[in-house]
């Protein structure tokens, strides 16, 4: 004979069982984001994204993700980024939380002597570089260098700064 107590016990088992199952299902499909941590700042333009339960990285310059860059990745991935502030999340069956990442601009100028007053200027930083060239303290020209790019120039003073249009 089934009594009211039995019915309440079955109610309890079904409700608790359902809640436990849902807890595990949601936990299982929620992406686990490992790195970079929220608010991470670096001058290194290569960033390792580590995560589980996701296959798509969304990157944008605003937290609303209005025009995100979408990168499909089955596993962890190193992405080269220009300097700036980024918001990112990963997507699998569910979406992860949004994290912020900052690539701090680093300016680095390398000058190699090639002979009398002839030099190769190389952008060794992580940003597009504008190099002003001076000849005896008079500005004689300027060159724009992409990351790792080098150009042969003449002069005796070279000033590197972030390219305005970058």
């Amino acid at each position: 004979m089934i009594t009211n107590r039995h019915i309440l016990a079955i109610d309890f088992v079904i409700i608790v069982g359902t809640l436990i199952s849902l807890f595990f299902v949601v936990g299982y499909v929620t992406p686990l984001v490992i790195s970079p941590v929220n608010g991470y700042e670096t001058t290194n333009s290569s960033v390792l994204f580590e995560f589980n339960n996701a296959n798509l990285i969304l990157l944008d310059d605003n937290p609303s993700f209005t025009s995100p860059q979408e990168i499909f990745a089955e596993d962890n991935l190193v992405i080269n980024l220009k300097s700036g502030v980024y918001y990112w999340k990963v997507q699998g069956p569910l979406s992860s939380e949004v994290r912020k990442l900052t690539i701090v601009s680093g300016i680095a100028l390398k000058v190699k002597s090639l002979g009398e007053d002839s030099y190769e200027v190389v952008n060794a930083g992580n940003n597009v570089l504008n190099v002003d060239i001076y000849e005896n303290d008079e500005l004689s020209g300027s060159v724009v260098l992409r990351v790792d790019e080098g150009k042969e120039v003449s002069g005796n003073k070279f000033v590197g700064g972030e390219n305005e249009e970058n």
Partner: protein
Amino acid sequence: MKKISLILLFILLATNVFAIGITPGKTDVDYNPGTSREIEFIVINTDAQDSDFAVLIQGDLNESISVSEVSFKMLAGESEKKLKYKIDIPNSLSPGLHKGEIVVVQLPKKSGTGGAFIGAAVAVATQVHVFVLYPGKYAEASLDVLGPDADGSVTFVIPVTSRGDLDLVRVRADIDIYSSLNEKIDSVTTNQIEIKSGERKEVAVVWKGDVPPGPYRAVATLVYDEQTLKLEREFDLGQQVLDVSSIVVNDFSLGGIAKFEILVENKWNRELSGTYAEMQIYNNKGEVMADFKSPTYDISALSKSVMVAFWDSEGVKAGVYDATLFLRYGSKSDQRELQLDVSNNRINVIGIGYVISEGSSSSLFSNPIVVVLAVGIVLLIIVNALWFIFLRKKLKGRSK
């Protein structure tokens, strides 16, 4: 004798290279008249040599900036030095952008015999930008065209910065699309948003143009409250694809440098600039044991090009290794899963599949785990519904 010559040559070469770094490259400071702010920056002695430096200030904010040190010395073992500058925000700056530059000059060395300087002076600058808002409503915007995606759709994105001291209440853009014959073929309207003073937001719209490949022109009229701003951008329709034709490694010996020659084909009708290849090689635990890249290449429309990347195989044993080849171009990143059969004098590259990574729209239910979980949830719903709607009432009725 040969050794001494080599050392002398090394010293000569070393002194012929000058290098210096600075971070950050630029700092934006809010315009708060009468206030001051201290900003730290780092000078990096990339040269690893004893060097003397001087710090100069230039730009239209030069009279408002003072630095913690105007000259300093760094020793060979000192990799970086932290400095500060203070900016006193002037009370009366005209609307618009104002700049200052803190220039760190690596002074040329003096010759051993006389007092003359030898070599070039190398300098790097960290910039400070102060933007003074315009009176009233003022919008700065640009038009970006993203895509086309795999389905041929193009996204028009207009980042808008409210540069006035009043908020922009209603911002939207009407975009007309013209063919190469200057015929208007379609019009679309973006979403409408509010942008507060000093904020940057985007309006966007996706256009699914059922039109043949070729060059097109988008003319956007940004409408912000009672004012308008015209923006134009040319774009191409056609699929942007970089395909791998072959990968070869010639003249390889285990322990040496392997030269990967990756022949790629640009199947798009426009040049792809700044493209490069990156390869990751995994050990038998699935960990990345090597990660190397090619230089960047500009590949002309509908043409082939060889990308070269080098791998130092020192310490690597013969065997078969999993690898992933990434092709990076524009905002895309395609990947190809490979196996490298490494023997004593050759590397055989085995391709086992190709994934167009970006833009591949994976449906939620293409993942078998999701299907299993969805079935589980449906079962839970059925069990709950059966119990609470039917069985429970039936059993309760019997128990009475």
